[in-house]
């Protein structure tokens, strides 16, 4: 598989998008979103962070243009991270001591 060359235009668009969403996440943090729904501030902050990280992985790190086997390794890694986070949190957050 020959190397895929990503154009500077795409890098510039991605870089600008990342900067804009850094501003958006800062602005969102100054609003009391928890007033609307408890935990909304964290949810919005994490959703923006995941979106930004996805752009970095797909375009700056070329995952979108990588061989399928590399993509499979990336997805498998994220799956294990999800296991670590979800299974541990489902334990902790359901303990009686967390709601005292």
């Amino acid at each position, binding site marked *: 598989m020959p190397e895929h060359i990503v154009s500077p235009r795409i890098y510039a668009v991605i870089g600008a998008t990342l*900067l804009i969403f850094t501003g958006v996440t800062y602005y969102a*943090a100054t609003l009391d*979103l928890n007033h609307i729904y408890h935990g909304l501030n964290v949810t919005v*902050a994490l959703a923006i962070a995941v979106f930004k990280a996805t752009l970095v*992985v797909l375009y700056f790190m070329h995952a979108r243009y990588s061989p399928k086997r590399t993509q499979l390794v990336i997805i498998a890694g994220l799956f294990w991270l999800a296991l670590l986070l979800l299974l541990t949190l489902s334990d902790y957050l359901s303990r009686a001591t967390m709601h005292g």
Partner: protein
Amino acid sequence: MHRTGELYGQFQTLDQQREAASLGMWVFLITEIMFFGGLFLAYTINRAIYAVAFAEASRELNVHMGGANTAVLILSSFTMAMGVWCSQTGRKRLLVVFLIATLALGGVFLGVKYFEYAEKFHHHLVPGYDFHFPDVKPEIAAQDPYINAHAQLFFSLYFGMTGLHALHMIVGAGLLLWLIAQAAKGRFTPAYNTPVEIVGLYWHFVDIIWIFLFPLLYLIDRHT
């Protein structure tokens, strides 16, 4: 090991060698993701348990320095990506320029981090070193009588996570210095630029860690 030009003996083509190197780097980065993932998990659990103290402690961080550093790191990822493009298209001089820009922006990030850390020492917010959390309103103190200890836990995680991130930046700066020296010799061509790509992957990974550290440490309790 037998080597013909830049092609090691166990590979048939430079493309195959590049794909193997990139795959290997991703496997390494996944071990790094698991390693930082454990720290993010520890932070999340403690934040859930000591929500009041963590919210108070989080507001002691300097959000302007943290925000500026986020922008600096994103710019450095952009210049790194442009460096990869230069190496792929044979722009040898411009490659050196973009790599130096990346290194300089990394230096700015670490410089800002130095001032942030110095501020924490000045404010007695370094765990184990004369830690004293500022007095809080009586209603906050009533919610968490051990707020000094729990705030210290926040700052332990803050220094642990940002410190390890900064360590990765320092390693990245070392890699960039080596890369700049190689690029200045004109080693990287459209046919062979794997080291630029690999160091780029590492640099972007360090950027991603900060993309999560910034909102989680600085932002989520900023309101009210």
